[in-house]
């Protein structure tokens, strides 16, 4: 039993102010405000993309236009209309106009900025065994560990780079899980996506290290539209982690990302997220609108896709990391902690679509609501007629802290096969008084007692995270809970 090592990002904190809110003074290269076909062309041109990529973007953009600014309305979230013409669709640090070839080429200011975030780009200062791709605003600024990965054949680079260096893979898989017609934000993203990570793990390779992308929105009034594509070829394994922060801004920032995962036969992808975008201030001003489409296709037989998310940030979160269980015996998992405080709103959950035989899915979702925040779990389990012997187990638990917040659970269970077995369970309550008293009777103060119980409530999810991040998640929880009790 040893003390867990805690990464420094969340330490030295005295109150519940957002701790990642400093902004960097980095000169950036920005496209003019607003969205038009010209902007789409400009983004494509800036990235030096081939014609086929531009065409795909334009198709998506034209489809998006047909949606006539009709954002999805069914989620349990409330926000004023977004003016899609009043934001920047492209901003990149100027110094990365010529992509860095090695760590030495990375602008020292950017390196300093990421050091401040606790995201080490210099390999000597790295998190042990984690390769990091950092995306500042829309551009990927550096990828560490490249050499080691190249030796085993793992491709880990920015999507814009992959478009040039691995066009066949990108052409084959981009949009194959989340087509641009999928939803409003997915269409928008396909038109204007700027960067994101690309991972390809060749057959039979077990990726030797954790891969990580660190996202940050820095520029004012900038939308961030990253696009991530991960392909695990037959019999391979990869664990990928993303972390997100944004500076404190009085105005809202839009983040509309798309993540596509593809697992072929016997492959496994483990995708973990620590989402700590700026949630807005205590009065609900500012904060990130996090409208994200994440979906994995467990395409091959015996494939497995596992999503783990710890969502503590964003003014609004709208995301449903999903798995389409196509391959026979494929497995989908969703483990989630969503904490909302002050005026945050989250409508998050998953979809598990069972198509293959003997497919199995597990959903464990823990929601915590405090302040005046609203938290909704929304999840769909669909068992198609072809999914003989499909199994699903779902457990959703919600905790309420204070009487001004809300906790909501909205499952959709659709079963079309008589050999399926599915079970959904949900509970909602506040922290149990008898548990609190028990801890207090052992000398533990009320705030610590609350934290211990809530941390215990989330422990099953945290332990799905890679070790360093489990400790960080626990720390994030603590920081975001401060001042909510007592």
């Amino acid at each position, binding site marked *: *039993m*040893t*003390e867990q090592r805690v990464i420094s990002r969340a330490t030295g904190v005295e109150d519940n102010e957002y701790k990642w809110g400093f902004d960097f003074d980095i000169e950036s290269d920005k496209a003019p405000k607003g969205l038009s076909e010209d902007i789409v062309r400009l983004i494509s041109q800036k990235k030096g993309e081939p014609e086929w990529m531009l065409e795909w973007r334009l198709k998506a953009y034209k489809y998006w236009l047909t949606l006539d600014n009709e954002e999805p309305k069914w989620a349990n979230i409330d926000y004023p209309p977004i003016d899609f013409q009043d934001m920047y669709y492209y901003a990149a640090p100027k110094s990365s106009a010529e992509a860095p070839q090695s760590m030495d080429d990375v602008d020292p200011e950017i390196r300093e900025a990421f050091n401040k975030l606790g995201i080490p780009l210099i390999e000597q200062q790295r998190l042990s065994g984690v390769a990091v791709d950092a995306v500042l605003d829309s551009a990927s600024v550096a990828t560490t560990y490249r050499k080691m990965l190249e030796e085993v054949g793992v491709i880990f680079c920015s999507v814009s780079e992959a478009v040039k260096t691995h066009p066949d893979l990108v052409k084959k898989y981009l949009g194959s899980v989340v087509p641009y017609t999928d939803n409003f934000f997915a269409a928008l993203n396909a038109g204007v996506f700027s960067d994101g990570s690309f991972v390809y793990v060749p057959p039979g390779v077990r990726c030797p290290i954790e891969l990580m992308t660190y996202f940050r929105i820095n520029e004012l009034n900038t939308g961030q539209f990253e696009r991530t594509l991960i392909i695990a070829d037959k019999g391979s394994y990869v664990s990928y982690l993303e972390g997100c922060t944004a500076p404190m801004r009085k105005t809202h920032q839009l983040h509309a990302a798309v993540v596509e995962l593809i697992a072929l036969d016997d492959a496994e992808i483990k995708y973990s997220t620590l989402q700590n975008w700026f949630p807005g201030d205590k009065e609900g001003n500012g904060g990130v609108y996090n409208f994200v489409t994440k979906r994995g296709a467990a395409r091959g037989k015996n494939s497995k896709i596992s999503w783990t998310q710890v969502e503590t940030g964003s003014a609004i979160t709208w995301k449903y990391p999903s798995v389409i269980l196509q391959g026979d015996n494929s497995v989908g998992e969703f483990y989630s902690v969503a904490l909302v405080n002050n005026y945050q709103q989250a409508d998050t959950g998953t979809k598990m679509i069972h198509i293959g035989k003997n497919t199995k899915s597990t959903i464990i979702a823990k929601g915590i609501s405090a302040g005046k925040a609203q938290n909704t779990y929304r999840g769909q389990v669909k068992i198609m007629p072809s999914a003989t012997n499909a199994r699903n187990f779902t457990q959703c638990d919600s905790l309420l802290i204070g009487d001004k917040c809300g906790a909501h659970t909205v499952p959709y269970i659709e079963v079309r096969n008589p050999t399926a077995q599915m079970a959904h369970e949900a509970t909602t309550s506040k922290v*149990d*008084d*008898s*548990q609190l*008293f*028990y*801890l*207090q*009777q*052992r*000398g*533990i*103060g*009320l705030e*610590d*007692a609350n934290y*211990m*119980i809530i*941390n*215990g*409530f*989330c*422990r*099953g999810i945290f332990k799905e995270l890679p070790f360093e991040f489990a400790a960080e998640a626990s720390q994030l929880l603590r920081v975001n809970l401060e001042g909510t009790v007592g």
Partner: protein
Amino acid sequence: MTQEIKNSPVLEVIDLHVSIEDKEILKGVNLTVNIGEVHAIMGPNGSGKSTLANVLAGRPEYTVTGGQVLYKGMDLLSMLPELRAREGIFLAFQYPVELPGVRTWQFLKASVDAIRQHRGEKVLSVREFDKLLDEKREIVEMDTDLVKRSVNEGFSGGEKKRNEIMQMALLDPTLALLDETDSGLDIDALRIVSEGVNKVRSDKNAFVLVTHYQRILNYITPDYVHVLVDGSIVRSGGRELALELEDKGYEWLRDQVAV
């Protein structure tokens, strides 16, 4: 930390009235416990004996409607539950609470840290704490892996009670309140629990044992026995009172009270 002197009062309960949801449970209880003493509180079901133990530990559901409690000369009733614990009051729960996801080790370390800090002692290192925990664990013959599991989750009734006594040994209280710790225990578990109590018992601490049956008093010899019926202490005496109760039952005393 104040030095307790044998025979000085550690607890003085004066005319204590307690209600829960407007129902009066304790109707004027008086009790004085000195350092070095073991008091047994006996009584039929619903007499208020568990209420007494829980009120002393500060359980929030109860409302004190009258009276006073002095603990080491301090006004106990104005203290938060965690402050009472840090000042040396330990309650062994009749129904120990399960804490899903909270590992026993983390919980106990936090508890010992909080109490030691309050006493102005240095926080134990992980190594020191593990050594201490091992010692105490052995007192109640508890498995190593139980401390790795979530607090009380999936523990059998006997394991939960042994866990309570282990915690008591670990926290080294000045005043230990044992709320029906003997109930639901088989004879082996009862022996283990009682031996644990006897090992902790010293001339620097005091015990209040709440129990329905005199069985546990065969293992832990009390200095005083009090009988609580319908919210007040109707009879106090020595060890022999417990045996008399076993013989005659509680009805005998109830009838006497009625008269």
